[in-house]
Every structure is written in C-alpha cells, then in structure tokens.
C-alpha cells in the first residue's frame, strides 16, 4: 500500500514537473488574439441569430397561414355536402330544368270529368 501511494505521488510529481505552468508571453498574446476574434464572431452571430429568429418566426406564421388555407380548401373539396345542401341543390336543379308555367295551365288547369268546357 505504501508502494502504491508512493507511485501515485511520484506520477503526479512527474506529470506536474513535465507540464509546468510556464505560459510564455508570446503564446499568451496569440491566444488573447484568438479570444478577441472569437468574441467578435460570437457577437456577430448573436446579432445574426436574433434577426434570423425574428425572420424565422415571421416565416413560420406565413407557412402556418398557407397551410390553413390549403387545409380549408381541401376540406371543402372532399367533404360530402350536408342533407340540407343536397335538397337545396336538387330543388335548384329541378327549377332550372322545369318548363315555365303557362297562363292556360294556371287558369284551366283543373278539369272535371263530365263537365263541358265553355
């Protein structure tokens, strides 16, 4: 167990010594430049994403409205008419196809068998 503990401590010391905390100024400057570039890009992206979010929201509304229109048209096209609508259509059809009524038909339309005319 003592040997194991020594091994752990030894390994940790080896790693810490081999990877010292000695960031050179030149490397630090390069990394700071990258941070600055990243922050600029992130700010741009954030602005862009805000605009694209608004545009996407408007677009979503447009698509939804269009979908509702299409759905309405399809529903009307495929739905079978109600019984009342059927009757109205039938009557309209009948009326448009029937002959116009003649005055004779109106006046003397009633004939009583055995009764002479005039």
């Amino acid at each position, binding site marked *: 167990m003592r040997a194991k503990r020594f091994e752990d401590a030894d*390994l940790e010391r080896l*790693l810490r010594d*081999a990877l*010292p905390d000695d960031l050179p100024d030149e490397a630090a400057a*390069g990394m*700071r430049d990258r941070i600055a570039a990243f922050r600029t890009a992130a700010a741009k992206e954030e602005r862009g994403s805000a605009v694209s979010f608004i545009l996407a929201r408007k677009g979503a509304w447009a698509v939804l409205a269009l979908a509702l229109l299409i759905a309405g048209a399809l529903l009307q096209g495929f739905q079978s008419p109600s019984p009342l609508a059927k009757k109205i259509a039938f009557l309209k059809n009948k009326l448009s196809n029937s002959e116009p009524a003649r005055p004779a038909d109106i006046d003397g339309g009633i004939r009583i068998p055995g009764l002479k005319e005039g």
Partner: protein
Amino acid sequence: MGNPAFDYDSLIKPLEPRMMRTIWRILREKPAAEDALQDALAVIWKKRGTVARHPNPPALILRITIASAVDSLRKTRRRLRHEVPGLPKDRRADDSADPAAGKAEERRFRPAILQAVGRLPKRQAEAVLLRIIEELSYEEIARAMGCTEATARVHVMRGKAALARRLARFRPDPARQPGLKE
C-alpha cells in the same frame, strides 16, 4: 440574446488566463494551443445555456478546455504515427535520459508523457488532468464530467494506473532501474 443567463464577462472572462495556461501546459505549441483554445470557446459558446445553468460553471469550463486540449493531443499523436511509419508508439522521447537527474530531465520525457496521456481513453485523460493539473476535488470533477464522484474516482484511478504502466521507465525508483523487468 439566445440565453440571457449566459454572460461571457462573468462566466468566461475570469477563467481566460487559467484556460490559456491549462491548454499551454498540455500542448506546449503555439498554433495547437491557439486552435485548442478557440475550439474550447466554440464548444462553450454552443453549450452556453448548459454552462450558465451548471451548478459549477468554472469546473465545466475547465473540463471543456481540457477536453479540447486532449482532442488536439490525440490528433497530433495520430498524425505523428501516420507521418512516421515504423516508429514505435511512445518511443519518440529520449529514453536514455536519467530519471533521477531532476526537473530539467523530466521535461525531456514530456513527449512520452503527452503521448501516454493522449493514448488514454478520453474521459480518463480528462479526469486525470483535471485532478493533477487543475487540482480539482473529486466532487468538482464529477460535476464537471456529469457523473458520480465514485465514477470520477474510478476514471482518475484507471487513468493514473495506465499512465504509471506506460511511464514506468521514467519513474525515479531505485527498484526500477533500466534492465529490470516491470
């Protein structure tokens, strides 16, 4: 603002020097370190909602930073292996150096140490570096890695055991002189 709770100046800015130093300690090459830092920042930015809501944002940020450095290390290791066919893995360091010769000598083992770290499974490498370089507690490591403290301990223990095996030849242990079997 996608995530109003995320504030770069309060969350990242104070950690920038530490992130830079950590990446440098692991990679020790200017272009690689700059790229790794940029990658880490990009990941943090992508996960900014998670970072802002995290119970320990600095630990998570350091973990992402170390993960980025480890990724770079692993890529370098793969590239080196690819570029130098026939060169045995982990034998590019100066093995003839005397392990008892002090820190300067230990730094000569650095390539082998970095290669050994790069060969670890990613989570083990992250856990070991968080523990040894960042000196985080197991609780902090667990929170940063999204696992239990016991799992974090296992990652560190296994990583250290693997490193101890791979770096056995650099151990300044009188019982382990060159020529002796491990």
